[in-house]
């Protein structure tokens, strides 16, 4: 019977869900209406996310690769997800690890490249090997695999999501959807227990941390906010503990840096961490010769002290996500724990203290994400009952464009429900400007250079106009898969540009995981800097418009008025050289007062001229030109 099944050419393709994790990966499917994971021949559903490249060209994935890691530390890639979608100079490449990296290529995309047997291996390629292995595992069980839902950390940015999709493509999988890990977990919980209410999902995995606040209501999963850190997880606990062990063993700096030593230390640290889940203290024999200490004892108390700073980073993200959701911690009906790292006792007590209630943990935190992914795949392939479940997810990080002075104008704020779109209108800063450069960024910081740069493109060929006359309408569109497209249109000429945003990996090598925390750390400096830059740009615009006006309409100036305006202008320009935003504003107000009568006279003339010419189009244009000063004045007040 079994054999017949295997060779049945008419086997119906079955949808699957894959949790592509930092430490372990799983594949699951829905059988008789219930999700279950698929185990390998050893009976384990957890496939270590480890890829070994043998000298003879063979690629080995999973447990067998894990056993080769110690002997071949540089040819065995562990935790490759931490490098996915990141640039060659990402800080992750400089953290404790045994790998050799190749420098950035002059041509080609800026991605991390491992050096393995002298060949370049990218994180996308290594991830594809893991996915291919899971696909084969599923094929053994289901005979034919259909569409797949792959989960990603909610906090993954566009670049990391795109890289995940690319890996799936390389592995020959048809991706139905990328679903956020906490949302998938909530799906498994919600459907399992038929619970409704307001929930927080705390997802601490091997390499990433997510927190999501969502409402479950009759099969609808409405995400209200999400936050996290895409470079924070159990691996970081291991690194801290590995450093500690190396110190207690008395290893020299030189020995500590050897790839094989690093691999052994990290594995020892991980094993010690696991044992500390049940034991109060663990004694680790020193496996290294030529080291003074024969063993190291780590207490749970010491471990807790080591990892406390990591947990405090998760706490920050949680508090913010709750605030962003517009709810109070006390309103939460439950807290769901996801990810292997939530087995650490200190993590559980920390979460309990943070949310004021004992977290739920009745579904295996290692499996829950894959189970949710399977449910969603089942639904998307039209196998479930219609309207049974629906995920309303959000954009994790704000999207915007760079405007004058390097400031970010946010077009779509974080936590906007997707799919979504938003329009904004911009204008030129210079007279005769015939093109716009649009720089698309993602992140929470106020200054563009501090955010992740996604794309830069140009809208050219606009006829020269006076500054402020062109009207550029920019539309951001985020589809149900979370992917961004940008359209730009100059309204007076109808000139258009449409761009599918393919992230320019690492154009800005500031890592996305740092962006939000940085925004919090520098919030005050940001606001001050932003106000200063805005005021400078505004002052420049105002000065230019005024200088032009007093030349063009010189005859409208009353005796002595010109001198007053020029004095105010000079004072304003002098103030822009300084760093005091409020001083610039004060000088703008002064200039405002000095030009009041003149502006009114110009307005009257513009209207009179236009009416005399009987040209409606030019009436509007002229009035608008005359309004330049007025608008600029009004603008720095109300926004």
């Amino acid at each position: 019977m079994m054999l017949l099944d295997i060779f049945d050419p008419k086997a119906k393709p079955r949808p699957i869900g894959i949790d592509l994790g930092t430490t372990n990966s799983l594949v699951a499917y829905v059988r008789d209406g219930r999700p279950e994971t698929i185990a390998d021949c050893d009976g384990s559903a957890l496939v270590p996310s480890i890829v070994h490249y043998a000298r003879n060209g063979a690629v080995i994935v999973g447990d067998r690769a894990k056993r080769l890691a110690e002997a071949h530390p540089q040819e065995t890639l562990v935790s490759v997800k931490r490098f996915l979608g990141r640039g060659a100079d990402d800080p992750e490449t400089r953290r404790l690890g045994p790998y050799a990296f190749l420098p950035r290529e002059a041509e080609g995309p800026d991605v991390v490249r491992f050096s393995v047997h002298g060949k370049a291996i990218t994180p996308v390629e290594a991830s594809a090997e893991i996915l291919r292995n899971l696909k084969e595992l599923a094929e053994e069980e289901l005979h034919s695999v259909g569409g797949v839902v792959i989960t990603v950390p909610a906090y993954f940015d566009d670049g990391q999501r795109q890289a995940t999709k690319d890996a799936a493509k390389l592995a020959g999988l048809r991706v139905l959807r990328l679903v956020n890990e906490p949302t998938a977990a909530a799906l498994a919980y919600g459907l399992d227990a038929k619970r409704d209410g307001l929930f927080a999902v705390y997802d601490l995995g091997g390499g990433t941390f997510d927190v999501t606040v969502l409402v479950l209501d009759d099969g609808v999963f409405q995400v209200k906010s999400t936050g996290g850190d895409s470079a924070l997880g159990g691996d970081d606990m291991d690194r801290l503990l590995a450093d500690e062990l190396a110190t207690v063993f008395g290893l020299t700096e030189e020995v500590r840096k050897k790839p094989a030593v690093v691999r052994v230390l990290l594995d020892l640290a991980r094993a010690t961490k696991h044992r500390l889940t049940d034991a109060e203290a663990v004694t680790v024999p020193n496996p290294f010769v030529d080291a003074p200490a024969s063993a190291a004892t780590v207490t749970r108390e010491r471990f807790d002290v080591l990892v406390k700073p990591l947990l405090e980073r998760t706490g920050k993200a949680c508090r913010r996500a709750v605030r962003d959701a517009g709810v109070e911690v006390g309103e939460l009906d439950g807290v769901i724990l996801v990810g292997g790292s939530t087995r650490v006792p200190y993590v559980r007590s920390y979460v309990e203290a943070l949310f004021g209630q004992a977290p739920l943990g009745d579904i295996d935190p290692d499996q829950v994400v894959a189970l949710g992914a399977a449910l969603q795949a089942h639904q998307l392939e039209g196998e479930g009952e219609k309207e049974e479940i629906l995920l309303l997810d959000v954009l994790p990080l704000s999207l915007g464009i760079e405007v004058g002075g390097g400031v970010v104008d946010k077009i779509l704020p974080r936590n906007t429900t997707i799919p979504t779109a938003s329009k904004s209108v911009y204008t030129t800063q210079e007279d005769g400007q015939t093109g716009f450069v649009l720089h698309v960024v993602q992140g929470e910081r106020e200054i563009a250079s501090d955010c992740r740069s996604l794309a830069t493109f140009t809208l050219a060929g606009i006829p020269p106009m006076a500054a402020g006359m062109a009207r550029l309408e920019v539309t951001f569109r985020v589809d149900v898969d979370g992917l961004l497209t940008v359209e730009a249109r100059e309204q007076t000429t109808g000139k258009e540009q449409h761009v599918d945003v393919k992230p320019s990996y690492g154009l800005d090598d500031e890592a996305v995981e740092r962006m939000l925390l940085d925004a919090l750390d520098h919030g005050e400096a940001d606001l001050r800097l932003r106000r200063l830059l805005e005021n400078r740009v505004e002052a420049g615009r105002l000065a230019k418009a005024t200088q032009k006006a007093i030349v063009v309409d010189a005859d409208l100036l009353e005796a002595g008025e010109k001198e007053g305006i020029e004095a105010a202008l000079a004072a304003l320009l002098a103030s822009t050289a300084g760093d005091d935003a409020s001083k610039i504003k004060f000088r703008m107000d002064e200039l405002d007062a000095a030009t009041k009568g003149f502006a009114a006279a110009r307005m009257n003339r513009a209207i009179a001229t236009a009416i005399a010419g009987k040209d409606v189009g030019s009436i509007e244009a002229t009035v608008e030109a005359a309004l330049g000063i007025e608008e600029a004045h009004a603008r720095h007040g109300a926004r």
Partner: protein
Amino acid sequence: MPTPFALFGLPATFALDLKVLERAQRELGKTIHPDTASDPSERRALAEQSTLANEGYRALRDPVTRAELLFQLAGVATGDGHEPKPTAAFLMDMLEKREALAEARTSKDRATVEALAAEIRAQRNDAEAALAALFSGVLPSPLDAQPALVHLGSLRYYRRFLEEATATLDEWDDA
């Protein structure tokens, strides 16, 4: 094209319970989310509808954009050049409060930031209540919209102020 109010089955008024709006979003999602269809062209059409609905949801959530929508429905232009200028007294008051906020931020004076935010929040609530009253019956005609436009202008200042105050408090909470 239906207005966001009509889309969510809500009356076109300023007073709005956000929990009711959220529930309406979930209900609407059940019928127009692209995942509810399998045919590609139907999915595309639903994706477009969902995008509009989510834009509408965002506009209704924010009191400033909600008021702007109501003015638009009433045929009243808003924005730079269309709204009455705030009075000198109002501007002076806001200027002083912003300076006080900046000072409190520099001197890490939490109590003052909270007090200022509470004061502005009370003023905002008053402006929202006034707008709710003005928008409760028939939408204002362009001729009698001035009082409501003044409140809208004030709301913009309050929103900006509270954003800055909240950002400051968030940062201290996290430290």
